[in-house]
């Protein structure tokens, strides 16, 4: 009797103390039929397997370090009220769930999954449908958000929240997610040293990707298609952006990439195609913009007068209605060795560099900048003549904004 008791005590002690933890199964005909009861009795380090089924148990708050694994896509339904999973634990991992209908609210940012103060968490391969916010990370560090499918049919910007929302986070990796129909696809505010790559954001109501006050982040290989206003990177330093695709962002205030007060960042090898405005530089300083392709945009690049010391080199400007537009007669940026499909110069010494400098800002684009309805005269003979005259005797276009060495053939 006594030995049995000792064995039991020992066993339970091992059980509690062990890092590997127990396995707990939830589902019909399993040890636990509700997720809440299973999580109540789970201990730090346990793995909870949730099997096929629909679980609508209101807002579940978890303060234990657990691994949750969904088998056969169990559905967690918020029924349009409040949050679904709120996690306040050290470590937490969740995989294979189907989250639906977290509640729309104008007061709370209700998310399908919210991590609050989590270290080393994972949210991988889940599905999200019609949630207000899908994934919300606050005060979180060293987490991975990967391979999630996020779709919302909520109609307007006010009714939908962000797909992946990061607030006060460090060293977070966001990769291989698809986000569709949310307000912002991916939103970063006060996020540092994080990486965003291989994601696709399309048809979101506002921005595909939205950066605010987030320094030292990198994003690459993402595709941003047909979002309400494209991608916005604001008030940040040392951001690296490369090999992304910005396309089909059409509309009055729509940008492939909107840069607002960005310092010391680099933009390499991106593709800007068929956007109303490919890239807007507003208050950008010391940016290196290199090896990008700007194809068939309305305006490839707009540079506001408050931007300076930016370098544009080895970019391809092909078939844009306007290559560069600016609201200033001065220029404090450098354009060097880009390819311009509008360039009409020649290359006598055959070194691949045109012998005549290229002025990418046309008179007409200055006129349109001052008074937009003038756009109706686009490509009229009169405007072509004006542009031609301005080319020989510049009166209104910034003389200093010039590519002294325009390339004769495409870079990429």
């Amino acid at each position, binding site marked *: 009797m006594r030995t049995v008791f000792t064995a039991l005590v020992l066993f339970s002690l091992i059980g509690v103390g062990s890092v590997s933890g127990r396995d707990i199964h939830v589902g019909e005909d399993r040890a636990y039929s509700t997720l809440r009861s299973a999580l109540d009795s789970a201990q730090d380090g346990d793995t909870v397997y949730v099997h096929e089924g629909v679980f609508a148990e209101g807002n579940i708050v978890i303060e234990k370090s657990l691994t949750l694994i969904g088998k056969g896509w169990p559905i967690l339904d918020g029924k349009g009220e409040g949050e679904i999973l709120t996690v306040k634990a050290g470590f937490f991992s969740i995989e294979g769930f189907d989250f639906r209908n977290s509640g729309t609210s104008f007061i709370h940012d209700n998310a399908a999954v919210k991590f609050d103060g989590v270290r080393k968490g994972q949210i991988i391969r889940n599905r999200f449908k019609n949630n207000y916010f899908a994934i919300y990370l606050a005060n979180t560090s060293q987490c991975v958000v990967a391979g999630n499918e996020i779709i919302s049919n909520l109609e307007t910007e006010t009714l939908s929240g962000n797909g992946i929302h990061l607030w006060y986070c460090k060293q977070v990796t966001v990769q291989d997610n698809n986000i569709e129909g949310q307000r912002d696809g991916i939103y970063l505010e006060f996020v540092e040293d994080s990486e965003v790559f291989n994601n696709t954001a399309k048809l979101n109501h506002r921005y595909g990707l939205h950066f605010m006050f987030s320094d030292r982040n990198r994003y690459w290989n993402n595709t941003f298609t047909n979002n309400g206003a494209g991608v916005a990177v604001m008030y940040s330093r040392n951001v690296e952006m490369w090999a992304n695709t910005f396309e089909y962002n*059409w*509309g*009055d205030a*729509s940008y492939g990439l909107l840069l607002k007060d960005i310092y010391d960042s680099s933009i390499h090898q991106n593709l800007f195609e*068929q*956007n*109303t*405005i490919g890239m807007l530089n507003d208050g950008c300083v010391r940016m290196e913009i290199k090896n990008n392709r700007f194809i*068939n*945009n*309305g*305006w490839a690049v707009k540079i506001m007068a408050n931007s300076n010391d930016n370098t544009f080199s080895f970019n391809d400007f*092909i*078939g844009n*209605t*306007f290559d560069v537009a600016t609201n200033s007669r001065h220029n404090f940026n450098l354009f060097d060795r880009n390819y311009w*499909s509008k360039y009409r110069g020649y290359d006598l010494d055959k070194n691949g560099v045109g012998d005549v400098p290229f002025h990418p800002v046309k008179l007409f684009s200055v*006129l349109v900048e*001052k*008074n*937009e*309805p*003038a*756009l*109706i*005269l*686009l*490509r*009229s*003979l*009169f*405007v*072509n*003549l004006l542009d031609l005259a301005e080319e020989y005797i510049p009166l209104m276009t910034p003389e200093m904004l010039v590519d002294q060495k325009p390339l004769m053939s495409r870079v990429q």
Partner: protein
Amino acid sequence: MKPFLKIIKYQLQDLIRGKWILLYALLFFVLTDGLFRFGNDGSKVVLSLMNITLFIIPLVSIVFGSMFFYSSREFIELLLAQPIGRGSLYRGMYVGLATPLSLAFVAGVGIPFIYNTYHTGAFGGIFIILLVSGVTLTFVFTALSYYISVKNEERVKGVGLTILIWLFFAVIYDGIVLALIFMFSEYPLDKASIAVTLLNPIDLARIMMLLMVDVSALLGYTGAVFKQFFGSPLGLVVAVSALIIWMIIPVWLGLRSFAKKDL
């Protein structure tokens, strides 16, 4: 209708004998084919073709039309000695010139366009808009040229006037519009700018083509207004009606003057 058709037939024979019409077709053919050959980028070809169409067609239609009318003076006098109504003579001469001019354009642009793009099938929409615009502009400016020629007895004055009219629609009008836009920049101008476009057939054709080519730029603020209007069924009806009115009014004016003219 018999004399009307016969007149068209004689017109055609006369034109082909003159070889000008063949040169005109050849010009379009060489330009289009050359653009495809030397400009590797298809969308660039479309843009250049658009500029060429908007530049050449009104100019050639109006100048060639009036020159043709003046040189047919003896032919007209001869025919009017026969039992032929002035109305059917005028209409026959009009259709008999505008149709071959249009055909020359369609063949000149169309043949190289089709054999250069048929394997990709690209630019189908813009191609059709291009052809329709070109044909419509031909009919509009031929009608204008005939009216001017009927009104002016003197050949030099008539031809000079046609060049002036062309210059007005092709260049001066847009200059005035630009000036107006800057003068009234404090006011909302979206509706006014649509109205302004309807008053110039060249601008109308240009906007229709722009909507196909520069859609991303035009989807900025002003463009959205245009897209909304010309993209809607109502807008299309208005645009087409405007172009038809641009054809009918000069023909009607010309017919009226021709009927009363002392020859």
